[in-house]
Each structure stands twice: as C-alpha cells, then as structure tokens.
C-alpha cells in the first residue's frame, strides 16, 4: 500500500503540487487523472523518488516514509517498484530480451537459463512471445509499451507506476494496454498507480480515481461514481467531448 499525505512540490516560485493526499491499495488499479499540466507526472515522480517533494509524506507499506529515507534505503524500495514510462524508455542499444533481462542481470544471481525463462514468461504475459531479438526501433508504439510493462514486472514488483500508458496509441491498443495493466495488478496483487487522461481508462479500470486540478486534489472516487459527480472541474474534464456530455444528460434524467 502507498499513502501520500499533504505532498507539496514547488519549482522556484511556482507551486505545482498543493498538498495532495490519497491512498493506493494493492490489487486495485488506481488512476491519477487531470488535464495536462495539472501535476500528475510531478506527483508520480515524487512518489517514485525521481523528484524530492518540498514537503509532505509518502508512505510505503503504511510506515516507511520514502521522503525521509537515505539514498541507499530508497534504492532498496526502488527494487520493489516497476515503472512504465510515457515513451516506454526502452534502452535503444539493447534488444527486447536484453531490455527485459536488464534488472535481473543487475540485481539477481540467477543463472542465464533462469533469467531467460523469466524473460520469456514476462514476454508471454504481455503477448510478445518470440519478440526477444527485436530491437526497440523495430517495435510499434503498443509493442514498446508492452515491453516496458514486461520490464517493469520482471522483478515481481510490489508497486507498479504507469505514466500515461496510452499516450500515442490507437483506441484499440489503448484498451489492450489498460486491460493488461489491470489483469497484472489483480493477478500479482500489485499496488498500481496509473497517470492518465484517457477516458476509456477512467471508465474501464479505475478502481480508485484521484482527480488533480491545478495542482490540488479536486475529487476522489472510483469508476462507478466518476460519471455522477457534481464537481465542476471534474465534469469539465470528463465531459469535454459533446458525446459524453449527452451521456451525462441521459444519466441525470
């Protein structure tokens, strides 16, 4: 479980996060949603330790305050974190197999056969069986994201962070990626946090939804309550499309 309490982050004079709190539980897909520039990525980077919050607490397992840990202790927590980056962030000079195997090479003493088996398991799980020798430049956007997911889960992480996993993907592939993340979360009981502004994700996999607006937590709930909220900022975000606005009208009737 991850709990964030009153997390604030400023860049110079500009306060990007204004006291965000929330609780993300294992086995559930939690979404952080909001318009571009609302602070989603900054919040995620604070949570994984790529940025240091100005103030606040980020609690892993309920009692480990990640913000105040030494770099060495943070490193240990990071080994339990898998992260899917917006552009997948695959290493260009390595094949799919080597990309997925990289964390195993760095942090385990498994034999090469065991490592290969684990890589093949993960690639099979993301429906990329046989893609081992392909280079990142030979992959489509969706395939890159799936390799990114395979690399993120190869070490059996407790926590999975996905930064806009659907960006740049067609709607069908987006749904496949969403479903894959959701299935993996439930299957391995992972605490998953997804940054997104994709409405299909919100309605499809949002077990817990945290809505950020101008750096503040404007609403929280789940996929069942998100469409019925009377929060103006959330409604402006969700029903930006006129088709969805029509659905909202029908729902309220």
């Amino acid at each position: 479980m991850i709990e964030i309490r009153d997390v604030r982050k400023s860049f110079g004079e500009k306060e990007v996060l204004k006291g965000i709190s929330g609780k993300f539980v294992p086995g559930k897909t939690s979404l952080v949603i909001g318009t571009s520039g609302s602070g989603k990525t900054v919040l995620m980077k604070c949570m994984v330790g790529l940025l240091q919050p100005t103030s606040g607490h980020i609690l892993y397992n309920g009692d480990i305050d990640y913000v105040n840990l030494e770099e060495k202790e943070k490193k240990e927590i990071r080994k339990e974190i898998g992260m899917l980056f917006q552009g997948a962030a695959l290493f260009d000079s390595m094949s799919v197999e080597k990309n997925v195997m990289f964390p195993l090479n760095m942090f385990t003493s498994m034999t090469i056969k065991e490592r290969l088996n684990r890589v093949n398991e993960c690639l099979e799980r993301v429906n990329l069986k046989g893609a081992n020798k392909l280079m990142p430049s030979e992959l489509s956007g969706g395939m890159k994201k799936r390799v990114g997911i395979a690399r993120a889960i190869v070490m059996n992480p407790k926590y999975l962070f996905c930064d806009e996993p659907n960006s740049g993907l067609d709607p069908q592939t987006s749904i496949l990626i969403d479903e894959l993340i959701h299935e993996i979360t439930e299957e391995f009981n992972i605490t998953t946090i997804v940054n997104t502004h994709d409405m299909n994700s919100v309605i499809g996999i949002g077990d817990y939804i945290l809505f950020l607006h101008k750096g503040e937590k404007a609403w929280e709930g789940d996929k069942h309550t998100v469409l019925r909220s009377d929060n103006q900022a959330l409604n402006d975000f969700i029903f930006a499309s006129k088709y969805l606005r029509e659905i909202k009208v029908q729902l309220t009737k």
Partner: protein
Amino acid sequence: MLSFKFFTQFGEYLFLLKKCFVNPDKPSIYWKEVMRQCIEIGVGSLTIVVIFSVFLGAVLTVQTAYQFTTPLLSKTIIGSIVTNTAVIEMAPSVTCLILAGKIGSSIASELGTMRITEQIDALEMMGVNSATYLVLPKVIAGTIMVPLLVMIAGFLEIYVGLLVGKWTNVLTPEEFMQGSIQYFIPFTVNFAVIKATTFGFIMSSIPAYLGYYTSGGALEVGKSATKAVVTSCIFILVFDYVLAEMLL
C-alpha cells in the same frame, strides 16, 4: 554572473564524477560495459585516426622540406623536425582535437538522448546508479583508448613522413632516421602519453557531463553535442599549454 554559472557547472561536473564512484552494483556488468566502450571509442575511431595521421605525416615532411631549402642545413634536420613535431604536438594535441569532435559529440548526444527519452530515469528507477553505469565506462574507455590511438597516430605520422620524403626525393630514409634519432628526446614520448591521457579524460568526461544533464528535446541534444565539442576543444588547448609549461 558568467563566473557564477561556470562555478555552478564545475561543481555539478565534480559531483557527477564523484557519483560515478558510488555503489557499483555488479562489477562484472560494469567491466563488460567498459569493454564495449573501449571498442566503440578505440576501434570506432581508428579509421579517422589512420586517415588523418597518414595525410598529416605526408604534409609535415613536404612542408618542412619546403622551408629548409638552404644548403647550409643538413637534410637530416627535416627528419628531426617531423619526428619531434609529431611526438610532441601533432599526435597528442591535434589528433585529440579531431577525436574530441568524434567522441565528444557521440557521448553527449547518446547521453542527451537517453536523458530526454527517460532512459536515465528508467535506470534510476530500477535502483541502478546511472552515472556509474553510463558515465564511468565512457571515461575509463576514453582515458585508456585515446593514448593508444595517439601512439598509433604518432607512429603513422613519422612513418608516412619518412616514406613521403623518399618518394618525393627530398631526403633518403637513412637521412630521415638519422635526424629522428640524433635530436630525439625520450621524455617527449612520456610527455605525449601524459597529454593524451589528460585529453582522453577531458574529451570523455566533459561531453558525458553535458549530455547527462541535458534537458528539453531534440534541439537541446544537438546543442549539448555542439557545446561538448567546443568545450572539450577549449579545455584540450588550455591543458596543452598548462602541461607544456609544467612538464617541459
């Protein structure tokens, strides 16, 4: 303001170098990476070094001979000048300026691209010390391979100079060798190796720093690569003078 920026950047540069030596997770992985970089930097730069040195050696002999047409001077002086110029300045300094263009831009653009495509963040997220994994092997490889390339360059410049002297009937190989040996100071070889090692460190660490801290997009990667080459060349020239003053 400018000096404040310089000292800030210099501090960051030192901090990055310090970070390189913290927490190497698995030495075998880093060893493989050092070997890979040695091949990339050393073997990858061999062609340009050979081409450059062959023509530089030829030009050195022809131009030196052109300036020493007086019968009052022995022809052996041409061999001496070509050899000493090649060993002291041409091989270590001029070759390194050329290599700074090739190696420096390659390192800065590689790391800059990794930074803007979040590959460095991905390494950090996995708990890998990205500086140790990405920067240290490049700096070690640069510091080892550049002196070797400089030795090859020096040998080729002298040897081609000798051959060109013979082909153009300027002086015989015997006269060339006699001049080379007669006025040769063995310390100049040590001096050249010291210079090449220093320049190898400069041309790998400065571009690594500039690439590692790139922020923005493709435009900034290009700017980092250009800045890396220019800065490396300036520091090579500065240290060329400093080392000459200190050691000669």
